[in-house]
């Protein structure tokens, strides 16, 4: 094996040769530069491969003596991995900086090489003084590179950096020399365990070394200088700082861990996690991209340091450091490198404005990088966070977990906001503006794409090594990738292929499913296939729609069959991510998607904490009220329960029409599934006992009432349907909260029928708005003649929803009232009766405004909805009719599932008649009675008609008025104005206001905190000195 000393020899020799070679021409010196970097990367890869194949360590003693006489280096698996990381980032960064490096004097390249060499030395050395030397070499090279292109901002940033670095160096030297005095050696391995470290003097000396390394890691709030440096640096250099330098510094910190006491480690842990949470909080206020990335980098590095210290304190062995800190680190360095390079390619001056938007491949890479950095699956940080939170909860470090969650949420918000700016172009919500042109970045896109590929591969590897070898687990990702590759095909063909893919998934998944899972598979996979087919209704390619759609549906499918909590959670997050991007693809989806994302990520974190508290493995878990409460809160957010629903109307309404339909009809059901599964796993006890369940019930009922009330005031058909869905899911939640045979039968029945009729209504509205070009109801009207099938579908849908006989909704309401009354929840029953009444209002308004009344002039020639929309509606219609006539078709499987959990009590079938303690319901009889009554009255009407005659549209002169425009004959705008005056105060968006206030509080706090960052280098220096002092106090207090 080549001795790593060759690295230093090669870098130094090349450094000296470069000016000579430059005399022969820049081409020669540049070749030398690239050859060295490439050779270094090759060597690092070779080291890594060798140590993976044959673990062990190589101890290198310089000069032929043994320590303590000489400086020792060590090369092992960890070192070679860190070297490989440094080399990879250095190559990518140099490639991004190639123009600047080639144009600047040759000293630029020399300095770059010295920086890389210094970082390699930090990784390899086992000598504390030698560590100082490499710290200074990489530091000086870094300062110089910052200012090498002679911009004033960069130079002043470099100066601030030097000031902070100077303080850290002094602390380090003082610490090292006293360590030498106390232990008699500078060699780390000889120092470890030395008696000299014990006692106050030893602790203080170690503290100074530690504090210097911590300061170099840019801890909050003593990191203003670093943030300025990130902002001012060439983005390639930013990548080098954030990726390579941070890796080497973290490695150096990790190296001195054996010297540290538990108190020292606690300081690292809390300093790191506080940096993560607060840097990201302050990052919320950033629009200048590189400064924002700077906050994110500081936060991520703090997170890794915290994870390392946490592992050292609480976990035996080095696996934790590898999996968690290593996972977080490699995730951060690849993702952040890619993001810095993206910002170099797409931004001119780093103030947040973009030169253009990326094509599909680069956009996908950007999405991967952001998702990875935020810790979404399947990327390495996701797995690492899962383990970290598990151990942190097991050791009762709840504050630590809370900071992890908060920091992640803040970071997700600003990084995804940036992503939206990148892929949609423009600074803010500007849907009307001209589309931003696609910027072909050519070679500049290579770095980000490579980083994205690397991070995806490592994420996949993490999943595989955790035992996820089930093909169904990989199906969502494989499906997404497959459809990404097929993205150039026509949309209709992709719709068919997507239908087939989802059906195939169902074919392979169904055999292993329980009845309970099959019931939901019908709604989710069946609905997914139907809506995939419906996705063919638009012309064109629908670029990017199908990869995300297939991934989302298949993740939902995997969530149904997942056997471990981790598998379920990964599918859950993937589904949320897919949903986010699908909402974002809507024309005005920006703010809606961001709110959805915030609730998804927040809810998912609660859920993760709950799953971990509950024992991690479905089936092997112990009943735990706290776990149920956390998981339940996460699920209620996804369900859009009242109070947590503020994301729902926007997300449902602003997504593409076919996805809105899937979202409301199918996707929302997964929360019901998970709630029921969670009760089975964690037990039914909530903190607060029965009262808590009563509250949950009321949350459902309030959602039903207020959702319906909000729906009646909407002018936009999709918002009306969205609020309607919120209301319907409110009933489901209330029924679930009853936790008995009647309640759960009701819940499942309502969920299943909501899937059917809401799918019909959304698709019908999708057809109407496709043909009329608007979603605003008062701009439509009279479509009954032009779109009869859509009308029938919508009509059946509203009858089924409203709960009037004879369709399925009647059964739903019958079940609901019976179970509520049987449970003794009389007020809830009354309130849900009220909600049903309100539902009539919006249903009537919708069918009236869209399909009845007078058609508008411009809609006289519209055609029926495309076949792609009509066929799914017809299928759903058949199902609704069938379930209405023969309720046992759906109720038998439901009652079998419920019966497995709750003993039969309350509801039972006698023949085709469902009997409860309060009465009975026969679906067939209901239909027959209704039809007979209808036919009789119809005959009576026909017989009593006297001289009927057909009139033209405007022939209403008998009204003593002659309208000239159809609009004036069709009352549709602000339809329920009187109700708004009477009841509007109930739906003025208090939840929205409350959540806006929470968000406002966060941004105000961020705004206040960032006043610390005055921009004055001297103030920053003071921060550093005070920070070290305060950390010392913390150490002393313990």
């Amino acid at each position, binding site marked *: 094996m080549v001795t790593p000393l060759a690295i230093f020899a090669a870098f130094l020799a090349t450094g000296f040769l470069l000016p000579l070679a430059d005399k022969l021409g820049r081409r020669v010196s540049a070749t030398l530069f690239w050859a060295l970097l490439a050779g270094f990367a090759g060597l690092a890869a070779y080291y890594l491969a060798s140590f993976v194949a044959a673990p062990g360590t190589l101890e290198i003693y310089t000069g032929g003596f043994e320590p303590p006489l000489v400086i020792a280096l060590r090369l092992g698996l960890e070192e070679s991995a860190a070297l490989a990381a440094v080399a990879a980032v250095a190559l990518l960064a140099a490639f991004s900086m190639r123009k600047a490096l080639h144009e600047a004097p040759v000293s630029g390249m020399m300095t770059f090489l010295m920086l890389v060499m210094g970082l390699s030395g930090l990784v390899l050395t086992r000598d504390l*003084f030698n560590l100082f030397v490499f710290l200074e070499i990489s530091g000086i090279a870094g300062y110089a590179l910052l200012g090498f292109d002679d911009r004033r901002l960069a130079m002043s940033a470099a100066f601030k950096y*030097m000031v902070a670095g100077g303080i850290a160096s002094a602390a380090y030297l003082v610490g090292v020399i*006293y360590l030498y005095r106390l232990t008699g050696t500078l060699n780390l391995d000889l120092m470890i365990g030395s008696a000299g470290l014990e006692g106050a003097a030893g602790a203080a000396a170690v503290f100074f070394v530690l504090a210097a390394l911590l300061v170099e890691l840019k801890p909050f709030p003593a990191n203003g200088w670093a943030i300025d440096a990130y902002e001012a640096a060439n983005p390639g250099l930013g990548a080098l700082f954030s990726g390579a330098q941070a890796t080497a510094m973290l490695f150096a910190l990790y190296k001195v861990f054996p010297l540290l006491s538990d108190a020292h480690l606690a300081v690292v842990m809390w300093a790191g996690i506080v940096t993560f949470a607060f840097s990201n909080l302050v990052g919320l206020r950033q629009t200048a991209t590189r400064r924002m990335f700077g906050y994110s980098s500081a936060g991520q590095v703090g997170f890794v340091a915290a994870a390392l210290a946490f592992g050292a304190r609480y976990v035996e062995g080095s696996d934790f450091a590898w999996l968690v800190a290593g996972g977080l680190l490699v995730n951060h360095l690849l993702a952040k490198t890619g993001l810095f390079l993206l910002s170099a390619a797409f931004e001119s001056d780093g103030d947040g404005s973009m030169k253009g938007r990326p094509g599909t491949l680069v956009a996908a890479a950007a999405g991967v990088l952001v998702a990875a950095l935020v810790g979404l699956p399947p990327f390495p940080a996701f797995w690492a966070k899962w383990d970290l939170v598990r151990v942190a909860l097991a050791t009762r470090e709840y504050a630590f977990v809370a900071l992890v969650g908060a920091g992640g949420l803040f970071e997700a918000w600003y990084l995804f906001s940036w992503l939206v700016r990148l892929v949609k172009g423009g600074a803010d919500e500007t849907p009307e503006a001209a589309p931003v042109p696609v910027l072909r970045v050519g070679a500049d896109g290579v770095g980000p794409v490579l980083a994205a590929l690397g991070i995806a591969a490592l994420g996949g590897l993490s999943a595989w090594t955790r035992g996820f070898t089930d093909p169904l687990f990989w199906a969502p990702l494989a499906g997404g990738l497959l459809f990404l590759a097929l993205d150039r095909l026509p949309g209709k063909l992709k719709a068919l292929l997507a239908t087939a893919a989802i059906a195939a998934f169902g074919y392979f998944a169904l055999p292993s499913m329980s009845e309970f899972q099959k019931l939901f598979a019908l709604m989710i996979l069946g609905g997914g296939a139907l809506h995939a087919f419906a996705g063919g209704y638009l012309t064109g390619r629908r670029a990017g729609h199908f990869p995300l759609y297939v991934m989302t549906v298949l993740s939902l499918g995997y969530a149904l069959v997942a056997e471990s909590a981790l598998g379920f959670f990964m599918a859950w997050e993937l589904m949320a991510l897919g949903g986010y991007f699908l909402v974002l693809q809507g024309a005005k989806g920006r703010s809606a998607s961001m709110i959805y994302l915030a609730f998804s990520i927040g809810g998912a974190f609660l859920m993760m904490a709950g799953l971990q508290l509950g024992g991690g493995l479905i089936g092997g878990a112990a009943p735990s009220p706290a776990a149920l409460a956390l998981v339940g809160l996460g699920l209620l957010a996804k369900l859009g329960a009242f109070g947590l629903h503020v994301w729902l109307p926007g997300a449902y309404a602003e997504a593409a029409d076919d996805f809105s339909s899937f979202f409301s009809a199918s996707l929302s059901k997964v929360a019901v599934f998970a709630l029921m599964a969670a009760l089975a796993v964690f037990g039914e006890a909530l903190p607060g006992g029965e009262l808590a369940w009563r509250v949950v019930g009321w949350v459902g009922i309030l959602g039903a009432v207020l959702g319906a009330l909000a729906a009646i005031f909407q002018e936009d058909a999709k918002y009306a349907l969205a609020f309607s869905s919120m209301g319907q899911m409110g009933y489901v939640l209330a029924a679930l909260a009853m936790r008995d045979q009647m309640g759960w039968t009701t819940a499942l029945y309502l969920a299943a029928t909501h899937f059917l009729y809401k799918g019909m209504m959304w698709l019908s509205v999708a057809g109407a708005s496709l043909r009329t070009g608007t979603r605003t109801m008062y701009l439509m009207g009279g479509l009954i003649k032009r779109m009869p099938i859509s009308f029938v579908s919508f009509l059946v849908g509203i009858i089924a929803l409203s709960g009037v006989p004879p369709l399925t909704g009647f059964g739903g309401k019958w079940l609901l009232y019976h179970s509520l009354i049987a449970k003794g929840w009389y007020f809830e029953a009354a309130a849900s009766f009220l909600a049903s009444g309100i539902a009539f209002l919006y249903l009537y308004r919708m069918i009236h405004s869209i399909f009845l009344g007078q058609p508008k002039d411009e809609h006289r020639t519209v055609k029926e909805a495309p076949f792609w929309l009509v066929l799914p509606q017809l299928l759903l219609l058949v199902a609704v009719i069938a379930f209405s006539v023969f309720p046992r078709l759906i109720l038998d499987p439901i009652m079998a599932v419920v019966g497995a959990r709750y003993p039969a009590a309350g509801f039972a079938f006698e023949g085709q008649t469902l009997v409860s303690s309060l009465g009975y319901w026969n679906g067939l009889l209901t239909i027959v009675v209704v039809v007979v009554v209808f036919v009789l009255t119809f005959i009576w009407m026909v017989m009593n008609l006297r001289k009927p005659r057909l009139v033209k549209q405007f022939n209403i002169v008998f009204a003593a008025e002659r309208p000239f425009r159809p609009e004036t004959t069709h009352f549709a705008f602000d339809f329920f104005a009187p109700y708004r005056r009477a009841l509007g105060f109930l739906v003025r968006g208090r939840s929205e206001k409350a959540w806006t206030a929470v968000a406002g509080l966060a941004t105000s706090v961020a705004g206040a905190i960032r*006043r610390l960052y005055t*921009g004055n280098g001297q103030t920053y220096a003071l921060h550093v000195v005070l920070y070290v002092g305060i950390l010392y106090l913390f150490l002393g207090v313990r």
Partner: protein
Amino acid sequence: MSDVNIVTLIGVALLLVGFYGALSRPNVIKMIVGFAIADTGVNMIIVAVGYLPGRTAPILDSAADAAGAAARMVDPIPQALVLTAIVIGLAVTALMLSFAVRMRRSGGGMAIDSYGEQKW
């Protein structure tokens, strides 16, 4: 051996004086001078740590031959280290000064607070 000697005390004093200067003088050059003083202080502390009372310089000459070196010399390691530290300190000071000059040329003032464009 006493833990505190006069050189250590002077070193600590210089370190504090240097930091005070760097943190309190707005003039960029004076800040750099402050750091240089602090560096000197650190170097003195390093040398002082290797000092053993009554011993001679770690040079093989008439005062100490190879056989008796270990018993008669002060610890040579800190003295070797301090050379490195001095060189590095020099490099950092030179770099800081060159940046100060270029910052001044690029139109900034001599005071550190005239370089606060980047903030928050």
